[in-house]
């Protein structure tokens, strides 16, 4: 047995889960799909004294449309994001990002909420949530609060979740049909964390960009959104864009990490190229009428 000993709790509903988290405090860790936490426990990089397994919490999985948003339950597994036609129709970017996550065995187990709460800036789902300005629903002992993606991701592996709070659902805005979406990333092997990547959504009216979202994967300590570029693109003619220039602007001012696989400068160059590629693909898909 490789992980250190821990006490195990499997609450049946959200109230029981938050009561447990509140009682156990800093000693407790929430276990969802376990595809990041359990490896960390096996390597003893994480040694929680108490584990609160949310897999049996009622009502935490599944997707539904509600007031122009797609509400995705926290324990919805990646495989559902990949295959559920409701997800593909409402938030295509989620369905297209999902196949990039690990391998199919990982996606059978890993969850949306787990990935977002783990908050790895090199992962796909945090970038999608940030780009689309998703809203996070956090349940605590005193009720539920909602936090925007920009405020949820604080810094490396750190979120706005308090120790007694549970991420219960994430609300993704549903864009109008005929928008274009794309994911582009470079990884050393398929299924590895990306060296760099970009996710993109775009809407075009009468040849001009009317709405655009650009998220960056692995380009900083949190998932980033190229907001200045989005503002400058809005209203401009889609056919006249210099995409290489847009890519360069999107990564300007970022400080991507450096490791044995890629240095900061290389990651920025790749990131710029991937923004151009994702935007180009999304523009092709979008109806320009």
């Amino acid at each position, binding site marked *: *047995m*490789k992980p250190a000993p821990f006490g195990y709790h*499997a609450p049946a509903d959200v109230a029981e889960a938050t009561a447990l988290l509140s009682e156990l405090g800093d000693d407790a860790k929430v276990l969802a799909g376990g595809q990041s936490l359990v490896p960390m426990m*096996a390597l003893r990089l994480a040694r929680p004294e108490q584990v609160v397994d949310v897999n049996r919490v009622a009502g935490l999985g599944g997707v539904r449309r509600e007031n122009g948003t797609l509400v995705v339950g926290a324990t919805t597994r990646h495989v559902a994001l990949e295959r559920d036609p409701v997800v593909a129709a409402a938030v295509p970017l989620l369905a297209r990002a999902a196949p990039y996550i690990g391998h199919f065995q990982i996606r059978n*187990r890993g969850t949306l909420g787990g990935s977002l709460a783990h908050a790895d800036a090199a992962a796909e789902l945090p970038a999608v949530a940030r780009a689309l300005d998703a809203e996070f629903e956090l349940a605590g002992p005193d009720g539920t609060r909602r936090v925007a993606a920009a405020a949820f991701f604080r810094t490396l592996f750190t979120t706005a979740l308090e120790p007694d709070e549970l991420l219960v659902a994430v609300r993704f805005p549903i864009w109008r049909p005929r928008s274009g979406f794309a994911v582009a990333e470079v990884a050393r092997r398929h299924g590895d964390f990306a060296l760099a990547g970009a996710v993109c959504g775009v809407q075009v009216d009468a040849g001009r960009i009317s709405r655009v979202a650009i998220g960056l994967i692995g380009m900083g300590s949190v998932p980033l959104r190229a907001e200045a570029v989005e503002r400058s693109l809005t209203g401009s003619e889609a056919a006249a864009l210099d995409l290489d220039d847009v890519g360069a602007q999107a990564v300007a001012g970022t400080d991507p990490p450096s490791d044995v696989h890629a240095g900061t400068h290389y990651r920025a160059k790749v990131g710029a190229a991937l923004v151009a590629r994702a935007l180009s693909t999304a523009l092709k898909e979008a109806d320009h009428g």
Partner: protein
Amino acid sequence: MAEITATQDAGTEMEVALTVNGEARRVRVEPRKTLADTLREDLGLTGTHLGCEHGVCGACTVLLDGAAVRACLVFAVQAEGAEVTTIEGLAADADSLTAVQRAFREHHGLQCGFCTPGFVLSVTAFLRDNPAPGEEEIRDGLSGNLCRCTGYQGIIRAVKAAAEEMGRR
């Protein structure tokens, strides 16, 4: 479900009831014991192999309620009430191997055999969900399992052959 929702202190063993290869089983395990260790040590099913023990190599792949998962990333206590299929559960004996098992044997899909149970279970689930995969899909479907002997070419041929055979039936 009462015993599952109860608070358990670290080190305390818990009773888990699960179905393994169609048979109802009961084990007493510490919460930190993975499903892979439990299958091997408590249930004697040593066909589930452990390579990296942190979710990279895929040697411990089993079917959990039909889905291929890494048994080293699931704690046995989480499998309460679940149905688990291991390599031992695929064929009753050497004469009744599944199409996937036969194809691995016939197309040199294994050499030392260490990674093979994980590959066979992954491919079994993969072909169930995608019965007529293209070459790229096969490579993608195999990417979650590591083999250090074959160089993968025999494994890819085995998956193609198994898909063809299953398609004919």
